[in-house]
């Protein structure tokens, strides 16, 4: 019986999509050891979507509430998760490797004195031991590790564990918890939100990225239109060359010094495919490249390539995608 705790993520009182992936990953681990999944949501009050988690395979959902937990607070969240883990015997605790999860999981690990396998892309149980696979050297190798301590802590790379519906009746409860005033010494004063509705490249199921081949910042309009044609599922990414040139914000940069993305579809437009760019997108499920240089390295990793002038190809492609979605 493998007992798995899935630590989920909410913002503004609504569960974030990555939470379904975490429950899905936790379910896989629990199933490998014919066990159970408990989901833990921290919030200022009830969190919308928490009652739907049975659909993805949670056996029980606990929402831990406190006025100071509405927004992520590193110390408050760490304390609540650690107390929960100490109170029960979990074999594994699973986090998202999101900005928040990357902050929270190591703290919990240090507090419990157990190792953390971060940014995991595959996991399972073999001979009673929990193992995890994670990319190292910018995705140029995979490291398979065995977690010897209990609980085993893992954070899951976003977009890798595609949510699977595994409906069951989940018991739900809400528990008031105690945290220090303001949640701790570090306080998130505000979240400056990006443009409303804009998807983050690290989490979008489709990413359309542009590079120096776009010639000037205004031409990114072509990619924004292509992204829109996918009907709200796509985000626009960028190579470092154009971020360094100030054409696009750093938040959009894909690659070793930017974000690591694993969307279902990655479209690289006017990007040569330097090793540091590949580091951020080579685990995408399907890669499409549009480049006028048939020898561009991006074609080596692209499942499908079109050689030609992006200024002719992209507008036509946008038109065709729009038709598909119409």
């Amino acid at each position, binding site marked *: 019986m493998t007992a798995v705790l899935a630590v989920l993520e909410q913002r503004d009182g609504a569960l974030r999509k990555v939470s379904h992936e975490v429950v899905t990953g936790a379910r896989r681990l629990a199933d490998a050891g014919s066990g159970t999944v408990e989901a833990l949501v921290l919030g200022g009050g009830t969190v919308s979507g928490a009652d739907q988690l049975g659909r993805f395979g949670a056996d029980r959902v606990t929402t831990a509430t406190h006025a100071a937990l509405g927004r992520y607070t590193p110390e408050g969240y760490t304390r609540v998760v650690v107390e929960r883990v100490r109170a029960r015997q979990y074999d594994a605790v699973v986090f998202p490797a999101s900005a928040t999860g990357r902050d929270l999981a190591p703290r919990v690990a240090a507090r419990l004195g157990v190792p953390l396998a971060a940014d995991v892309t595959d996991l399972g149980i073999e001979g009673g031991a929990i193992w995890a696979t994670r990319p*190292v050297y910018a995705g140029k190798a995979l490291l398979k590790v065995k977690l010897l301590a209990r609980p085993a802590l893992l954070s899951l790379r976003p977009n890798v564990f595609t949510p699977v519906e595994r409906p069951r009746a989940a018991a739900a409860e809400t528990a008031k918890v105690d945290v220090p005033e303001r949640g701790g010494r570090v306080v998130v004063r*505000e979240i400056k939100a990006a443009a409303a509705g804009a998807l983050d490249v690290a989490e979008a199921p489709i990413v359309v990225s542009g590079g120096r081949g776009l010639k000037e910042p205004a031409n990114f309009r072509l990619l924004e239109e292509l992204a829109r044609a996918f009907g709200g599922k796509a985000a626009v990414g960028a190579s470092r060359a154009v971020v360094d040139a100030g054409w696009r914000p750093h938040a959009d940069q894909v690659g070793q010094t930017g974000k690591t993305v694993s969307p279902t579809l990655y479209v690289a437009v006017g990007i040569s495919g330097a090793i540091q760019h590949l580091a951020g997108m080579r685990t995408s499920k399907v890669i499409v490249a549009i480049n006028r240089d048939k020898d561009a390295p991006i074609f080596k990793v692209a499942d499908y390539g079109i050689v030609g002038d992006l200024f*002719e190809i992209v507008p036509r492609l946008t038109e065709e995608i729009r038709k598909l979605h119409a």
Partner: protein
Amino acid sequence: MKIAVCIKRVADSETRVKIAADGKALDEAGVKFVLNPYDEFAVEEALRRKEQAGSGEVVVVALGPAAAQETIRAALAMGVDRGVLLQVDRIPADGLVVAQALAAELKDGGYDLILCGKMAIDDYNHQVGPMVAELLGLPCVTSIAHLELQGNTGVAEREVEGGIEVCEFPLPAVLTTDKGLNEPRYPALKGIMAAKKKPLDIKPTALAVGGLEVLAMTPPPDRKDGRIVGEGVAAIPELLRLLREEAKVL
């Protein structure tokens, strides 16, 4: 301002990864090693803060093999005052073991700030900084791209999905640095010469056993051979057909 920076010696990002004979690690033959790029932001920030304060000390601490002395010298050449090498044969895969050794070294140092990179580009762990903070009981903000300090209070900005979190924290604190925080300086010739004479304390270090066992390092699954669908706009219909029928992503 007394500032410590944790720095790691890592394989350069251009490295062609060859797996060692034991099937569990990188074959280091011919690999170029550098100061982890995210740690350069941390070193730069430490130097600027000390310069602004007009006095203080910047110390770098690296846990690694004897060869990590070079990495420390690179930081000394940028302007860091002194270095400490926690010498081990091999850097463990378990970030907690690394954090425990670093925390033990930093514990009684009286630092106002402890800086780390947000992640090491070899292991992608994103964990040693916040672990050190927890072990030392210090407040910590990770992946910062902007920092303001006033007296004993700091305000840092970090990128989260779809926005920027503005975090307030008291000093002393641990911070981990992201790209965008600053532009690291290149060491001048004078700095490189001076670095040779700066103190570098080598401490042989015994590590805890840890709870992560490396089973195997393998090459990533081969992407099946890429295919050029065609040239120009004429190739669009075939591309869409493939995305729909073969890749099933549309």
